[in-house]
């Protein structure tokens, strides 16, 4: 298929349809509303269901219901709306139900603003909802990658029977880039889901639930979930390294910030500074081995985020505190500029470290 120029939000919608998603439940919020807007038109064309719920809480519980019945289903929102969905997300993780959740982050906390942000990293990666659960978190940095990861997200959700989050931001949602879509996947070709409540005719009833009143049973359930998360850590890490082989300073950034960091690395290289970029594509599981390899010659690391320092904690932890890890961030909808990140690289390699 030829390339088309498309907004990130709309491209994600089309990618979901092509990945066999036929159900969307959501509630509008800037800067992700083009996604439900696109699917409101597109899903009925392929026999799917688009429903604007009365709230985010209702939407995520509709996702729970559809997933429990075996459907490929998704929802999307932006920061405050994702907070509202957190209870349902924890329930889905507990009930082992697959789904895809898109978060086009904006500035917070609270209602915050509508301009881009990356301050929901902790919420996405460390919990957000209650209980010992994990989301698989994918962090695309271009429109093409968003499309490619959408198919992957549904695959992983089914593989692990776990919610998967695509963590974007307002820039990725609003930006247009050329994109190529995969072929349409027929949802009827997907394997049967042995847990789905499809009507208990001539078989034992199936129960989808996250309630385990017996602590012995609940502990066992938790341990079983942990085994899945360990599997993800062992098998699902993804990352991209850019000029890291000989880098004295390695930048670490995800999503839109990684694009800015990449341009700053280009500028630094043009001036003879050995700089590189490490870009995690999975935020959980964090690509530990890849980051250690990318930073093996680095004397220092600079993490760039649209937050006041969230992923930087995982960068330090995964590098096992062996290399100094610095931080540069902008918040509130302000976006780091290439110049500012380059100046920070220069300051660090020139040794003007505080």
């Amino acid at each position, binding site marked *: 298929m030829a*390339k088309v*120029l498309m907004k990130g939000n709309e491209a994600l919608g089309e990618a979901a349809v092509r990945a066999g998603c036929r159900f969307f439940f959501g509630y509008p919020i*800037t*800067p992700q509303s083009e996604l439900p807007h696109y699917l409101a038109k597109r899903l009925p064309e392929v026999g799917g269901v688009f429903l604007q719920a009365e709230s985010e809480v209702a939407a995520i519980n509709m996702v729970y219901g559809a997933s429990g019945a075996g459907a490929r289903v998704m929802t999307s929102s932006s920061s405050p709306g994702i907070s509202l969905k957190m209870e349902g997300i924890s329930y889905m993780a507990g009930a082992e139900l697959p789904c895809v959740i898109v978060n086009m982050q904006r500035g917070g906390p609270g209602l915050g603003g*509508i*301009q881009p942000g990356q301050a929901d990293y902790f919420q996405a990666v460390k919990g957000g909802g209650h209980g010992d659960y994990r989301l698989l978190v994918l962090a695309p940095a271009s429109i093409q990658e968003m499309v490619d990861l959408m198919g992957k997200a549904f695959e992983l959700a089914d593989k692990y029977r776990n919610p998967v989050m695509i963590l974007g931001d*307002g*820039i990725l949602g*609003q*930006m*247009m*880039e*050329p994109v190529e879509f995969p072929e349409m996947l027929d949802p009827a070709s997907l394997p049967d889901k042995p847990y789905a409540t499809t009507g208990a005719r001539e078989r034992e009833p199936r129960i989808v639930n996250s309630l385990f009143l017996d602590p012995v049973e609940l502990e066992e359930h938790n341990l079983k979930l942990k085994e899945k998360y360990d599997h993800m850590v062992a098998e699902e890490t993804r990352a991209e390294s850019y000029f890291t082989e000989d880098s004295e300073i390695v930048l670490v950034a995800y999503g*839109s910030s990684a*694009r*800015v960091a*990449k*341009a700053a*690395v*280009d500028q630094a290289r043009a001036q003879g500074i050995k700089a590189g970029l490490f870009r995690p594509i999975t935020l959980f599981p964090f690509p530990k081995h890849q980051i250690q390899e990318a930073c093996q010659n680095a004397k220092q690391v600079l993490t760039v985020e649209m937050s006041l320092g969230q992923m930087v904690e995982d960068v330090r932890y995964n590098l096992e505190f062996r290399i100094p890890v610095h931080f540069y961030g902008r918040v509130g909808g302000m*976006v780091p*500029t*290439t*110049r500012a990140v380059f100046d920070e690289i220069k300051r660090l390699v020139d040794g003007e470290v505080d």
Partner: protein
Amino acid sequence: MLQEIILAGFGGQGVMSMGQLLAYAGMEEDKQVSWIPSYGPEMRGGTANCSVTISDVSVSSPLISEPDTLIVLNRPSLEKFEQDIKPGGLLLINSSLVDRDPLRKDLRILKIPADDLANEKFGNTRVANMILLGAFVAITKAVSLDSVVGALKKVLPEYRHNLIPLNRQALELGAELASGA
């Protein structure tokens, strides 16, 4: 070739469409492109801008803080972005609506009374943006005028395709003015 452009004006002047036309035209020429709009609570009459990158190699950052070119359709946009243009960069001004001179002396500057021309020549101020876009393309050759004309089919909704000849004429007028400048 790497051309980073900021286009700015009032909402309703067609700056978003200008940017999309450039991005489409670049894509059709197999160049790497990106387009980012400003987004916010503003509607028609408020300020709007978009950033477009056209490049021979993959676009590292689609976010532009120091554009090669600034195209301004109104005065607030000149005030907002003039200081950001790269030294030696290009500044295209819609002098029909910008009633002051730029402060920078290190730029290539072209003033076109686009609204007045659009009204005089075509009886329609809504193609003022196309006159400026035509001038930009003629000066920078970032994409060809033919590609921009071709992109009109993609950017204009089908029920507006009857306006393609008018838009093409406006683009050509702008290109002509820039070649004479």
